[in-house]
């Protein structure tokens, strides 16, 4: 049981970090399906630069830099250039997945996995028994994730930027009347999202593990996005949804070890995706209560050709 809870925290941390990215994007009115691509780009940049320089800090900084750059491009394409948000987002995901796998071969001349010695610091270690196991061996990012969630909440609820973001996401015309440039506010939100995805990716590669593997995000960016909808695009709600999906993943991992004989592994791996459909369905029901929200939401995903 302790082991499952510990695995839950470890699996949930990247999901929650990326879900916070999704919250910022969603609040700005952007249906951000590029989270997966940013996350894997962050994971790769951390390992690539971290391993080359031997410094995990430089790796994380590089990851943030790469994700900020990609996010700025994403903003440029969907904002000033008017590309479709969903298609460009999926394109960004493919650029991330394909680009990292390509770079793995082109730069490091390996296929599959790149192992590294650099690892994020782990504040609490060497507890092997009792309830302490739950909190032991987690990277520093797992510890700061709750702080980031709280910070996101405060920024969205209390800061000038958060209120502007809400205005831009809900009714850009009103925001413009009030002298706010929606495009610039969206850029800021997308950049924040990019940096958070970099942290999520770094946690995945050098926090929980010590390697980068092709396609290692394995749909987590999408699951984090669903956590945003499940959590009603509230940071706390999205964080709990992320925790829940982390729990589902932990059960999956545990039963791979224990009950593989009885339940085929693939069915256990399906759990997060099935839950996700259920969550989107529930989230949709919840959303429909507010007609206004629905109108705003429809605008986001309207195919515009």
């Amino acid at each position: 049981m302790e082991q499952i809870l510990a695995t839950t925290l470890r699996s949930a941390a990247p999901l929650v970090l990326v879900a916070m990215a999704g919250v910022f994007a969603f609040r700005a009115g952007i249906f951000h399906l590029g989270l997966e691509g940013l996350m894997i780009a962050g994971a790769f940049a951390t390992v690539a630069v971290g391993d080359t320089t031997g410094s995990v800090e430089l790796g994380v900084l590089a990851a943030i830099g790469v994700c900020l750059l990609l996010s700025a491009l994403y903003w440029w394409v969907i904002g000033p250039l008017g590309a479709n948000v969903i298609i460009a987002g999926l394109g960004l995901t493919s650029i991330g997945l394909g680009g990292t796998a390509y770079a793995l071969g082109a730069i490091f001349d390996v296929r599959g996995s790149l192992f590294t010695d650099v690892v994020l610091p782990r504040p609490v270690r060497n507890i092997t028994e009792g309830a302490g196991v739950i909190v032991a061996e987690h990277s520093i990012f797992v510890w700061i994730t709750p702080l980031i969630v709280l910070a996101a909440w405060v920024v969205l609820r209390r800061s000038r930027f958060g209120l502007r973001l809400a205005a831009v996401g809900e009714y850009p015309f009103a925001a413009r009347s009030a002298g706010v440039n929606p495009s610039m506010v969206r850029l800021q939100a997308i950049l924040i999202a990019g940096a958070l995805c970099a942290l999520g990716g770094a946690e995945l590669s050098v926090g929980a593990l010590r390697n980068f593997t092709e396609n290692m995000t394995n749909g987590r960016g999408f699951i984090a996005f669903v956590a945003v909808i499940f959590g009603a695009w509230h940071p706390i709600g999205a964080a709990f949804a992320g925790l829940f999906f982390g729990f589902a993943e932990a059960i999956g991992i545990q039963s791979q070890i224990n009950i593989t004989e009885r339940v085929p592994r693939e069915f256990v791996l399906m759990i997060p995706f099935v839950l996700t459909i259920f969550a989107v369905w529930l989230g949709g029901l919840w959303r429909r209560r507010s007609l206004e929200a629905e109108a705003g939401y429809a605008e986001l995903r309207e195919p515009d050709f």
Partner: protein
Amino acid sequence: MTSGLRRAVWTVVLVVVSFLITALILRVSGYSVGDVFSGIIQGAITATGASTSSIRWAIPLLLIALGVVVGFRAGFFNIGGQGQFYMGACSALAISLGWREGPAGLVILCGTLAAMLAGVLWSLFPGWLRVRFGTDEVLTTLMMSFIGALVLQYLTAGPMRNPQGTGQTAASERIPEAFRLTGGSGVSLTVLLLVAGVTVLVWLVLERTRFGLTMTLVGRNATMARWQGINVRRVGLGAFALSGALAGLAGAVELYGPAARLVTGFSPEVGFTAVVVALVGLLNVWGTVVAAIFFGGLQAAILFLPIVTDLPPPALVLLHGMVAFLVTIKFRAVRRRRAAQTEATAG
């Protein structure tokens, strides 16, 4: 220029730009763009069997992309073609392995129908959630895709695994040779006629039938369509069903054509590439045919490239991503007009 022609030219420009950016990335990371380019030409057109291989890869892309076009017409993003394709292939495989002694024609017919039915079911569930509850279909079709990939993995590693198989990756048994519509090349007159027939049929349905027209109306403005007395839900379900049937059919054609057996995670990119194909084809049936042949050629080329260069194959995923990232960028005049419209309606 007519607006249709201008859109076509603009799309070609965007695709070329995506290629140039990708070429620049390859150049910077030390590959000779000239070698890669001549490798692509050889692998797609000039080398022995290259053009056949291009057509072979264009076929599943075309069928799935036509499904995407149908979905878009009615205003839906069916991006779960991958899962529908897998489920179609699995169903056809189950029928073909379960009824080995059956008359070939009948087995292929049943297998194909089963494949289309599986595709329909796999897309109709998210479709039903969409029209009944307003559940966002972008995410649900995507999740159904992940689930479909796991079902394929389960079947090829478990119940349908080839017991004699020794390879690292799980693969099913081969279907009897009598059931195959093509040789290993994946192209034969039967398959070409089938695909051409289906393409014309989809065009007829979209452009010449009442169902196609109502679908377009629903896609343009669902509220308006509802006021005109169109049963929006039924039309939406029809669009999802047709879309899934086409992806399922692609799975059957893959099995009875080039594959003959199923391997875990085969053609992993085909579903997403089909979305790109449909967009590059301007969501128009004939445009999609051209785009499918183009991207089919690219797929054939990337499989050929390792022979002439040491380019890592994921470069193709990068390229597809780049095209998707850029291809929906609007022409400047369109952008300005749309901005003016938004201002006007918001005001």
